[in-house]
């Protein structure tokens, strides 16, 4: 029982640290690609500390509760994801709860943004929900392909079934959903080709326009956790999540760098182009993958 | 071709004097009453582009000079039509009560120029659809671009009387 309690406390903190490290790495790599020296790796941590010392503005109770709800949702989400050897709450429902809690996070931010009553926020939120509808279609097909292939809904069973280098990404029917998931990873992380939601030039950083000091800090933490969750889920489902956390972290770095290189050099899609792309190639791949897994049963 | 235009102008209008400044530039000075008639005449001759209306302040003659710069979009005036001609029409308006009929019904695009001149030189254009401010956001008792507007005095009156905050605190 004690091990479980320690795991429950440690894994969100670990997720937060890894998420911030990835964001710092992202800014450093983008800078280096742009021929710039770039900020120190710990810059996101400095930003969060600074944001906590700023006195921000609040537009009402829902404005605060929405941000708290979305961060609570992402912390709870981290508890359900198997990370290396430890998975704090894997006993209750596995992948279905993950898919459902992923529903909670954009809803929380959208509700709190709505109270901010700013035109940029409304445009940003409608783009965010449309983009998430866009990448949910291939994402669900990919996760369903995994579920039907391993005939389970618990992520730990999926990881256990991929022991000893029989990774899902390289076994035949699951290559296509794996590729589809890789193609929608930038959209889920909000990286450059799909950075339509917080487009600083067009809609003054979308839903984050009215967030000041600690609201922005909470949203940065939530973004860090979301980065961790999305990549950890991919590694768990398709790369057979390692037995100890260090190998797991290495696999996550590889995937994140992939997304980062695309992010540094790609211009930004319009929202229609983004959703049309998401509903064309990744969905086709995931759909064909699902059909094959059904036939191969 | 500038020559024919020059003779034709002097023939049709009596108080008009045209001078050929450079190879393709014609400077026309006309009296206040006929100015718009000359403008219309030049427009019908093919000079369909009113590039600019500007204003020059002659305090010692006690007059404001309105300068209309005309050219043509595609080609020179008929019948030859090969090279492009610039015509600069000048009229004089008295400084103390500067009134002048508007050119908007001849050239639609004259409207902003006239608003600007009204704002900076105080010339009243009768019949102007929207004589509001174009660039400035307040009124000055002496229009700013006039020579007798003493900027130094205005700055002292307006800006320097605002006290520094450190002194108060």
């Amino acid at each position: 029982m004690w091990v479980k309690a320690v795991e429950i406390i440690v894994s969100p903190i670990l997720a937060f640290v890894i998420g911030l490290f990835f964001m710092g790495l992202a800014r450093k790599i983008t800078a280096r690609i742009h021929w710039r020296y770039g900020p120190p790796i710990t810059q996101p941590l400095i930003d969060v500390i600074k944001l906590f010392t700023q006195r921000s503005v609040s537009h009402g109770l829902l404005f605060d509760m929405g941000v708290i709800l979305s961060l609570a949702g992402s912390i709870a989400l981290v508890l359900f994801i198997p990370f290396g050897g430890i998975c704090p709450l894997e006993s209750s429902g596995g992948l279905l709860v993950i898919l459902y809690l992923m529903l909670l996070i954009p809803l929380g931010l959208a509700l709190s943004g709505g109270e901010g009553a700013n035109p940029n926020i409304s445009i940003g939120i409608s783009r965010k929900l449309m983009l998430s509808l866009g990448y949910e279609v291939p994402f669900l097909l990919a996760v369903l392909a995994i579920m039907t292939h391993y005939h389970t809904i618990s992520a730990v069973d999926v990881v256990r079934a991929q022991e000893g280098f029989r990774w899902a990404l390289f076994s035949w029917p699951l290559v296509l959903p794996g590729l589809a998931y890789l193609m929608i990873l930038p959209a889920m992380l909000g990286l450059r080709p799909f950075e339509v939601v917080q487009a600083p030039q067009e809609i003054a950083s979308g839903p984050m326009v009215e967030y000041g000091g600690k609201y922005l800090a909470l949203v940065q933490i939530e973004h860090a956790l979301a980065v961790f969750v999305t990549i950890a889920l991919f590694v768990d489902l398709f790369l057979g999540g390692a037995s100890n956390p260090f190998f797991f972290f290495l696999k996550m770095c590889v995937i994140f760098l992939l997304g980062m290189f695309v992010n540094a050099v790609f211009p930004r899609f319009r929202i229609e182009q983004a959703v049309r792309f998401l509903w064309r190639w990744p969905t086709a791949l995931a759909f064909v993958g699902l059909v094959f897994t059904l036939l191969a049963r | 071709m500038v020559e024919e235009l020059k003779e034709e102008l002097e023939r049709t209008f009596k108080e008009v004097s045209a001078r050929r400044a450079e190879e393709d530039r014609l400077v026309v000075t006309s009296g206040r009453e006929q100015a718009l008639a000359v403008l219309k005449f030049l427009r019908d001759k093919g000079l369909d582009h009113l590039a600019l209306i500007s204003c020059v302040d002659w305090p010692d003659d006690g007059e404001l000079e309105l300068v209309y710069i005309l050219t043509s979009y595609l080609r020179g005036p008929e019948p030859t039509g090969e090279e492009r001609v610039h015509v600069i029409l000048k009229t004089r308006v008295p400084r103390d009560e500067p009134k002048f009929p508007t050119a908007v019904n001849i050239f639609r695009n004259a409207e902003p120029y006239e608003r600007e001149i009204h704002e900076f030189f105080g010339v009243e254009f009768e019949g102007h659809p929207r004589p509001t401010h174009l660039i400035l956001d307040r009124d000055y008792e002496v229009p700013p671009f006039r020579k007798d507007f003493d900027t130094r005095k205005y700055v002292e009156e307006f800006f320097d009387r605002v006290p520094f905050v450190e002194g108060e605190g």
Partner: protein
Amino acid sequence: MSPEILLSVAFVGAALTYILGRISSSLRDVFSVLLSVALVAMVALMYGMSGEEEFYMGFLGLPLVLRYGTLQWLFAIAVSSICALSTVFSLSYMRGKERLNFFYFSMFLVEAGMLGVVLSGDLVSFYIFWEVMSWSAFLLISYNRGPALAAGMKYIVMSVVGSVAMLVGILSLYATYGTLGIPEVASHMASASSGYILFTLIIFGIGFGIKSAIVPLHTWLPDAHSEAPSPFSAVLSGVLIKMGTYGFLLIMYVMVGIKAFLELGSGLYSFHYILCWLGAITAVIPTFIALLQNDAKRLLAWHSIGQIGYIILGIALGTSLGIAGGVFHILNHATFKALLFLTVGAVEYRTGGVRDLNSLGGLIKRMPLTFVGALVGALGIIGVPLTNGFVSKWLIYKTLILNRHPFLTFAAFIGTWGTLLSFYKFLHNIFLGQLPERYKDLEKAPFSMQLPIAILSLAVVFFGILPGIPLKVINKIGVSLGFEPLKVSIWGLASETGALNTLNIFTAVLVAGVIVWLIFRAGMKPVPVPQDNNYAAGSYIPRDRYIYTAEFYSPLFRMIRPYLRDVVDEFYMALSKGVRRTSDKLRRIYVGDVGYYVIYIILFLALLIALKIWLKLW
């Protein structure tokens, strides 16, 4: 507390409200509230009892029987509580309007009809109460004249087609088996041929399909719900369309029996698999059509069809988890859909009938409790953890995955995401955003409206956190329908294949929320700021400049609008136009001269004789 007394109280009560209404309106209001609460109490007292009761012999020798058990009890409690809450709601909602006696009379008539349908033990009384329910619903749908008459006409035409189909089914059963009691028919059906079972299923399926608005038969619902007065549309979409699902349960599992139902047809073409696909399509297409709506009530109406898709998906699967999920979703949908319609009614009451999503906004500042109700309703219908919608949708998803139907799960999930998008638009355009100038001094909804909204929101959250209570009842229903029971704990399902334990999820989200709240309080105290102190690129937003968002998902509309034309509706409209034209031509043969009619008769007789001789038909 036998059902006979219950039904008689309901019907007599309906008549009494009309008579009392004649005397004095306040007396009628008090009486109607008392009556509805009494009905709820009487139904509640019937918990656990089951049995049969004949109450009338003389109907051409067939006994009219009332049967009640846990399945009937669950539906009865849902019907009576929703009707009670909407009666309380309509006290202040209908104050200014005319013909109130008629409104309350038909409201109680619908409730009595529904109770009758649920409690009836044989098909004849079932049919009688079904007609009473349909017709009184028609009266209420076309209550406020104008476009409501057309909507009512469309509703009644389709429900009459459904009832006729049901009548044909009942007569065919009577012809083959001679008796119409449900248990007797069930025993006979066990030995019936699969063709005959398929025929009865389809015939009754049409009748119940129209009432519960499954995709091809759904076109009456959007007009009926948006034109009906709000308290009645809460009842209409909360419980009235559930009578269709009750009918499906009755037909599929009580009369035909599970084994026969699942074996009908083979493999991919089995009847229940097609019904599942129908449910999946009903769950997805209307949800995305709802995304395009600009009228709040039409958006909710399209979502009622979507949620019925989930229920059918749950029921038609034929597994114990599926039944539990489907029936639990019936109860949940009744609660949060009624809650949503009541909140729209409250907004409509305060803003003088404005339902257009493009011209409202910022009402959270003026009507906070109504916003809380709408928020809880929206979270419930999306199925966010900690609400009852989550538990029932969870059960449906688990059965779909464990029985290897990935594409059905995909359709269900996309339906959930569509619901999320359209309900955020619903909440954003009515409650969030800037408050327009004309609603600056809008007061709160009156107490008689806030009470039902508060009760329903509590129900949504309470059943979400403690789903064990309703799941115990549903377990009994599953057993009575012949499914094996589920291991249910107070916190959720403790079954072996990946248990859902709302305790874990609930504590995880709650503890994380408290920690985040503490971190939030640790930071500097934020400065509360009015709405117009907002970033607008260096200028100041004057009160009336930016007010509402129109066409909330316009890029998405441009992409999916051509695919979402309601082709079924156009087909029906073309059909009705064709019928009107042909009947126009037929009218010409009646020229009004008796001579012609005699000739017609003679010709017809000649035709009959010719058929007899040449073709020897009979």
